């Protein structure tokens, strides 16, 4: 139990990767472009699991949509998918050199179109998960 607590305490929480202290373990990040796309990512460390990384990234995408007053957003797993307008309804999270990491291209929409996710619904779905994992903004 102590080991579990220690390891859980080391896992990356829900926060930006820019912070001097908390950012040391990773966190969410954004990069603009190309066009209206925003690349949103979550870089975890070796202690965070796949489901948590997935939840944090989905929650962050929804949070960014709501901050922009956009009720909908769509996810693309790659630029070729974005050019072909093949949105993804889910994400593929994997490890890079032992650390959990994933990213996605996001396009925000004012009006619903096929392939869009509801930002409010996604945020609600993952909010409880994030609080249960001890994530803090």
């Amino acid at each position, binding site marked *: 139990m102590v080991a579990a607590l220690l390891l859980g305490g080391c896992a990356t929480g829900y926060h930006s990767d820019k912070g001097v202290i908390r950012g040391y373990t990773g966190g969410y990040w954004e990069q603009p472009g*190309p*066009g209206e796309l925003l690349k949103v990512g979550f870089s975890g460390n070796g202690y965070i699991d796949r489901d948590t990384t997935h939840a944090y990234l989905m929650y962050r995408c929804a949070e960014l949509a709501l901050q922009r007053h956009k009720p909908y957003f769509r996810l693309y797993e790659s*630029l070729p998918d974005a050019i072909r307008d093949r949105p993804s309804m889910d994400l593929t*999270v994997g490890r*890079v*050199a032992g650390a959990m990491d994933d990213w996605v291209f996001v396009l925000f929409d004012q009006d619903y179109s096929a392939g869009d996710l509801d930002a409010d619904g996604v945020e609600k779905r993952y909010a409880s998960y994030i609080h249960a994992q001890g994530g803090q903004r």
Partner: protein
Amino acid sequence: MSAGRTIRRLLPAVAAVVLGGCAGLPMYQPAAGQSLATIKLSPNLASQVMPLSFCDRRRCYDLKSSHGELQVPTGERLMLFKVLVASGYQRMYSCSPDLTFVPYPGVVYYADFALRAEHCVLGLYREAPASRVGILFEPTVRAVPHKHAG
């Protein structure tokens, strides 16, 4: 030009890279009056001083980023590539994705490097400001066939 002929023409340059090993490549310096094409870099590439390298039929060069852009010579097929080495948690990962394309003067390209679940991809697109996603597929891009030890 067929893909096979293209690769055969690029092979001496590629061999030079391999034989050069860690010695590094010369920095590309355009000749005076040289026709050039611009490659805009995605943020993850733009943050690096020497984000990409290329080979023409004769030799290979490193490209130096300036304000998030690179310039390459036009008029012949080039091989564009990137070498990445990452490590952590007693694990090491390396990759060197590549592609070939024919740069045209006046065309603005967009290069992106993506790493997901230990699979890396180098992408080159044509800028399209009128599109919401800002880019289109570049029609001259070809994959570089590689022989894998089995």
